[in-house]
């Protein structure tokens, strides 16, 4: 066996001389002249690539802001990398953004495992990890992780609202729960039980779980139906939600059916399940649904449609992901606006934690973003909605904080 190492030597010497090896120098981290460097990580490829469009909608919104003069006279330059929803790749990309591109902050990494992978790193480096795209409750922990903040209502908040609705309208309900066997499903379940309080033990008559890799949830649904429950809390992702809705109808069970917001999209869940079979479902909402006729002439939705046509014409107008991206990007811009000329990482975090009654038009009327040094959960209220066969119809007051 011959070990020929000359070429490796050549290769390594070549890489040493490459320009990437030269360290960059900048005075203020994340500010290059008139530009603010924002880091962004999104799954453009891999199992969660359906969410890749969020990153494109955000980029389109920043383009619009720049064309209109930027924020406080500065342009937003977003560097976006693909992590393919793979945590080691997220670590690599976050390190690239922080150490090489020297961004001011990292905005909107998506998914609980990828965000968990960089959670400690971002906080050790003291770089803001802002408005992460996951509803896990753990992002609201300013004491231990003062550099990380969520955005959407967390799963426990939402589940507690269903629990309150059940306690009020059907105090003797027998509840069956179907949940995805991971931290997302368990987070919801925990919040739901906390919401029911002492009555959780007697009211929940059956729990069943499934794995993401399962082909169907038919057997779980049969078990739940056999338990004699009259109320069903459906903690599933769109594919399984559609199966469960269809099964609950076809088997003749027809319980009072609560569907988690994760799968509330008419296009991706209810239409495949059958709109007629979805009548009477309950869910919660915090964003306006751009497909919903009641908002057709709403100024925010009109503005959004115009924005999409001009800045992201290839984007899908039906996809809620694009509306979400537009909405979360506005929150980011608000924070930078508030930071004024003091664009340090400390001040960005301070401003993100000082949002007061910020209510962009994309949120449902009455929902406001409020944060403080001890409250890192921007959106904490939702509104219940019932499906009428065509649209989600909101009812009652905005609930939560």
């Amino acid at each position, binding site marked *: 066996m011959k070990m*020929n190492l000359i070429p490796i030597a050549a290769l*390594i010497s070549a890489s040493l001389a490459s320009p*990437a090896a030269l360290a960059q120098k900048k005075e203020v981290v994340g500010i290059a002249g008139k530009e603010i460097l924002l880091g962004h990580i999104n799954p453009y490829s891999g199992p969660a690539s359906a969410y890749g469009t969020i990153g494109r909608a955000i980029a389109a919104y920043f383009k619009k802001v720049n064309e209109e003069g930027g924020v406080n006279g500065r342009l937003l330059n977003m560097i976006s990398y693909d992590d393919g929803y793979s945590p080691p790749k997220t670590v690599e990309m976050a390190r690239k953004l922080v150490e090489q591109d020297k961004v001011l902050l990292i905005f909107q990494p998506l998914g609980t*495992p990828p965000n968990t992978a960089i959670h400690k790193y971002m906080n050790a480096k003291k770089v803001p990890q802002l408005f992460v795209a996951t509803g896990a409750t753990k992002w609201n922990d300013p004491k231990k992780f003062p550099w990380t903040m969520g955005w959407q209502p967390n799963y426990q908040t939402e589940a507690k609202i269903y629990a309150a609705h059940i306690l009020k309208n059907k105090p003797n309900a027998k509840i069956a729960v179907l949940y995805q066997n991971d931290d997302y499903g368990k987070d919801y379940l925990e919040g739901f039980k906390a919401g029911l309080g002492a009555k959780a033990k007697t009211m929940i008559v059956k729990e069943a779980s499934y794995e993401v890799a399962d082909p169907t949830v038919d057997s779980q649904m049969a078990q739940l139906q056999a338990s004699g429950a009259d109320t069903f809390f459906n903690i599933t992702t769109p594919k399984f939600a559609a199966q469960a809705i269809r099964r609950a109808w076809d088997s003749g069970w027809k319980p009072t059916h609560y569907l988690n917001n994760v799968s509330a999209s008419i296009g991706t869940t209810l239409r495949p399940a059958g709109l007629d079979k979805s009548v009477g479902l309950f869910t919660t909402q915090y964003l306006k649904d751009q497909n919903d006729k009641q908002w057709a002439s709403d100024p925010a939705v009109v503005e959004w449609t115009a924005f999409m046509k001009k800045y992201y014409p290839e984007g899908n107008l039906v996809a809620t992901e694009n509306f979400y991206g537009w909405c979360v990007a506005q929150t980011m811009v608000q924070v930078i606006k508030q930071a004024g000329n003091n664009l340090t990482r400390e001040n960005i975090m301070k401003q993100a934690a000082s949002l007061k009654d910020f209510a962009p038009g994309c949120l449902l009327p009455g929902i406001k973003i409020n944060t403080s040094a001890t409250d890192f959960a921007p959106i904490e209220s939702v509104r219940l909605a019932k499906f009428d066969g065509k649209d989600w119809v909101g009812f009652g007051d905005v609930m939560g904080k």
Partner: protein
Amino acid sequence: MSRNNLVALAVVLAAACVLPFLISEYRTFQFTLVLVYAIALLGLNMLTGYNGQISLGHGAFYAIGAYCAAILMDKYGVPYWATLPVAGAVCLVAGFLFGLPALKLEGLYLALATFALGVSLPPLLKHHHLEQWTGGVQGISILKPDSPEILTELGIVLNQDQWLYFFTLAVTVAMFLIAWNLLRGRIGRAMVAIRDNHIATETMGVNNAMVKSLTFGISAMYTGVAGALGAIAVQFVAPDSFNIFLSITLLIGIVIGGLASIQGAIYGALFIQFVPNIADDISKAAPWAIFGLFLLAFVYVLPAGVAGAIRMGMARLQRKRQNP
């Protein structure tokens, strides 16, 4: 080893030692991952390149190694360096045991069996009975090791990334030396002979079953050690980190680097670490299409892998020198 090669080895090692002082911490981290992948690819190359057994599931052994390291560090407070032998030993046994029934399978059937291993491990890691150790979907976060105090006392100040790089480099050198020693000896020859003609090998008195299972075990051991090092470098393990694409990536690495070549593992590791990033820089819309183009180009231009192309190039140079 000829004198030229010894000189080259010295140059490579010297360059590898200087490297982390010239590049950023982030690049150092990337080169640490290159070394990690090189060990994993070397392991897979023993099995597939030298012994002719195709594995589409080596990501599973990488995952087992990674979880061994993470669980030992997180739950039992074992120092990071001590997790490597454990990860290696666990994977050696796991690989050997998987290799025994796999003996009956040839070619594509073995590929399918290993594929099954690769796809089934991530969901198993999420299973609720294992969750108290594996942390379920949440995974396990681990702390990055600091440079040992004794070095600081000696006046050598290294940051965490540099230290981990040197630690990984030392392990890589050791693993490569062991592999080199093994592959050029009796066992290495038996492995290649089984690949080329197993009946003839059996007639020569080689215990085919034993050699094949052992190769599987050693191959898994290498990949497991790489997994443990990878977990320490990334500081996080979760089932999503080890999907089936990891196994495929490893296979891509050995084919691009060069089958049945020790140095090929290094080229393959550079490829799988850097080419996806380059593809992502070229096109955000379709990074994998660009990656596919790179792959096609390599397969067409360098059909024997990078190592094979270099071998042929060197041979041609030598012929020219001999008959000018």
